[in-house]
């Protein structure tokens, strides 16, 4: 690592020679505004022109996000020329922007607004024609509104490099340039995963999840029994929306908030995560014993299921037939719970709070309808939407006391359910139960299963259980999944069981989670973009450790559900309610 001497506004610094001016300045304590750069200030496009600085000897102003530092470089961030140029750059972006900031759901998290304030952009400096726009809200999960796009290209990079797909691209030229799927099609009509990774990087409101708070309001108005369930990953991130440090678990406060919002029951999807483990571990053992399609692959992540159906339609037989946990929970609420409480399933409205945008798509699937043809889940709110909902009710989240999830019949959960939210969690939970079923005893070593933890895209491990060797792999992001799937296709996969999560890092980094941008989180460390996933995951693992019951098969309410209603894992009734089917949707590519 070679060091070079640079000067920023007359002050000398030594920095790594591999840095860009933007990164170097950040390390030295200067914040150069930018819109297109993300992940470490790296940027391949230099498209937004907001990060302009003056470099002595360079021709014109330089885009600091792509300009490398070199020995003796004299940089001026604060010169009249540079500050004026950055201001005009932003004013030009604003001249082609849809100014409905007051009602824009991105307000408070809008990087364009923040940058405009930083550079001192003036009102209405450039007025004139605007680029023809597209508003696409046909998909159940995502909205694309090009009137708010600044053409930074982050979403294109994210889709291409984080997920390895590349649904989005620039189209047309010059003033008419927009960002979208090819032929400016809807997200509904292209092989999009609905994972929302593009939403997590969009600096403005151009890409957003489809809001469903209104649906929940309507259900309350109609006098329904509105029952809410929350996914494990939500508790690990919701606090960020209220200014808490990344990785603060807020389970108790979240439950209090939901109770104050008036939900009839507040349940934890973890109950259904335990149920999923019972069904999935049973399915795995059946496949091993009866020569079913192996490796078996988890199906909790609807982004991953969308990918499998559209890109690997020939491999859908490898997917576990288990519904994802929140769909299971919904199905059990509308059957078992409804019967127990003498409520008509039609009068129940199930709301899932999820870290995910693809869950919004999943709940619309015809396969995810159970009792009386009713949808298992009626509305899905993202973690971000829940924060909006809580704020709207005037609730001071940070001052809430803790409370417990409702404990009647569907309330109990184990530590195994909690860790579903982190990549490797489903695997670890499944192994804990599979081990018990195969050997009749519990393995304490599986209570901290290091080989499947961590943020790598692909992790693998091998376990010998009851004399059987089980090779497993844990994968997050579709880019990491591709080579593993190609191996299965080629018939040379060494694995028995594979956990796949659609988003890099699993649900804790889902498309519906609070935005992570160091520029928006001034109290966080500079390296927060590297560490937030580990911090959120740690919040879940610590909750697992605090639980006294940490294995799904020890969940007494899950046991009661089987005794009273479902008989046993894999029973006919369980299949009816808790399992699903998949379709080869490869034609969507065409």
């Amino acid at each position, binding site marked *: 690592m070679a060091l070079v001497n640079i000067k920023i506004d007359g002050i000398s610094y030594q920095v790594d020679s591999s840095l860009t001016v933007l990164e170097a300045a950040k390390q030295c304590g200067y914040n150069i505004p930018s819109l297109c750069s993300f992940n470490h200030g790296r940027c391949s496009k230099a498209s937004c022109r907001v990060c302009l600085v003056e470099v002595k000897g360079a021709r014109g102003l330089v885009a600091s996000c792509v300009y490398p530092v070199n020995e003796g470089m004299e940089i001026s961030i604060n010169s009249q020329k540079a500050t004026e140029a950055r201001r005009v750059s932003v004013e030009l972006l604003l001249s082609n922007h849809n100014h409905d900031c007051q009602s824009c759901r991105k307000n408070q998290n809008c990087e364009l607004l923040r940058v405009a304030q930083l550079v001192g952009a003036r009102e209405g400096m450039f007025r004139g024609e605007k680029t023809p726009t597209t508003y696409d809200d046909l998909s159940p999960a995502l909205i694309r509104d090009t009137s708010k796009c600044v053409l930074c290209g982050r979403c*294109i990079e994210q889709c*291409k490099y984080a997920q390895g*797909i*590349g*649904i*989005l*691209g*620039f*189209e*047309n*030229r010059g003033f008419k340039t927009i960002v*979208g*799927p*090819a*032929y400016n099609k809807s997200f509904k009509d292209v092989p999009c995963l609905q994972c929302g990774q593009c939403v997590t990087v969009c600096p403005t409101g151009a890409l957003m999840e489809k809001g469903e708070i209104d649906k929940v309001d309507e259900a309350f108005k109609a006098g329904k029994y509105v029952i809410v369930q929350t996914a494990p990953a939500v508790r690990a991130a919701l606090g960020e929306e209220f200014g808490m440090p990344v990785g603060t678990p807020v389970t108790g406060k979240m439950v209090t908030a939901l109770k104050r919002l008036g939900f009839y029951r507040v349940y934890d999807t973890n109950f259904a995560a335990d149920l999923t483990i019972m069904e999935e571990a049973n399915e795995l053992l059946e496949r091993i014993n009866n020569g079913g399609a192996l490796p078996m692959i988890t199906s909790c992540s609807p982004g991953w299921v969308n990918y499998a159906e559209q890109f690997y339609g020939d491999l859908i037989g490898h997917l576990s037939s288990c519904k994802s946990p929140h769909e299971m929970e919904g199905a059990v609420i509308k059957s078992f719970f409804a019967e127990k409480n003498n409520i008509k399933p039609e009068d129940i409205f199930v709301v899932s709070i999820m870290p995910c945008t693809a869950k919004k798509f999943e709940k619309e699937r015809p396969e995810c309808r159970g009792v009386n043809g009713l949808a298992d889940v009626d509305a899905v709110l993202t973690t971000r939407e829940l924060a909006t909902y809580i704020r709207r009710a005037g609730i001071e989240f940070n001052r809430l006391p803790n409370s417990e999830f409702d404990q009647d019949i569907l309330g109990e959960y184990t530590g195994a359910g909690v860790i579903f939210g982190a990549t490797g969690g489903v695997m670890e939970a499944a192994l804990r139960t599979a081990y018990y079923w195969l050997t009749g005893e519990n393995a304490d070593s599986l209570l901290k299963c290091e080989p499947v933890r961590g943020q790598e895209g692909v992790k693998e491990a091998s376990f010998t259980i009851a004399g059987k060797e089980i090779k497993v792999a844990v994968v997050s992001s579709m880019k990491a999944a591709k080579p593993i799937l190609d191996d299965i296709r080629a018939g040379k996969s060494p694995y028995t069981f594979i956990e796949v999560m659609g988003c890099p890092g699993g649900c804790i980094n889902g498309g519906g989670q609070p935005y992570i941008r160091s520029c928006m989180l001034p109290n966080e460390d500079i390296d927060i973009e590297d560490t937030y996933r580990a911090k959120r995951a740690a919040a879940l693992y610590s909750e697992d450790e605090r639980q006294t019951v940490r294995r799904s098969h020890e969940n007494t309410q899950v046991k009661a559900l089987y005794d009273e209603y479902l008989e046993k894992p894999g029973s006919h009734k369980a299949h009816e309610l808790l399992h699903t089917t998949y379709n080869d949707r490869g034609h969507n*590519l*065409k």
Partner: protein
Amino acid sequence: MKLQEHAIKEIKEIVAQFINEPTPLMMILSAVQTKFGYIPMEAQELISEETGISVAEIYGVVTFYSFFSLKPKGKYIIGVCLGTACYVKNSQQVIDKFCQLLGIQPGETTADGMFTIDALRCIGACALAPAVRVNEKVYPQVRVEDVEKIIDACEKMEAEKNEKGN
């Protein structure tokens, strides 16, 4: 719409010819454009399958360069140069006249598939300004009153071709 068998074969051949180049996409698209006169959606999807480059990226390139076209072009592509030298010598009026006589806008093709009007940026014929290019032929110093003659010449050429053909 589906691509015909021979078109699929030809596009695959074009892809195979350039796939090992460092940046094959531009070469492939140029060859397909030249061969078929346009690059329809189905061709872009086939190129995507063959190269592994996403459709969005291919569509982005096709819509960026004016040389590429998503729709079939006419037999006679009238390119009017609107580069600086031609523009100051009234080429805007020339292209307006073409549009008026043919009843189409720049970038469009007449219903009979005969003519396409393209607005070109500098074609490097500044000494001949204002220049009009019809397929390979360049007409120098075109005045508004010459426009009709150029169209007539094309129609005459087409009629002769058809006679020969018969």
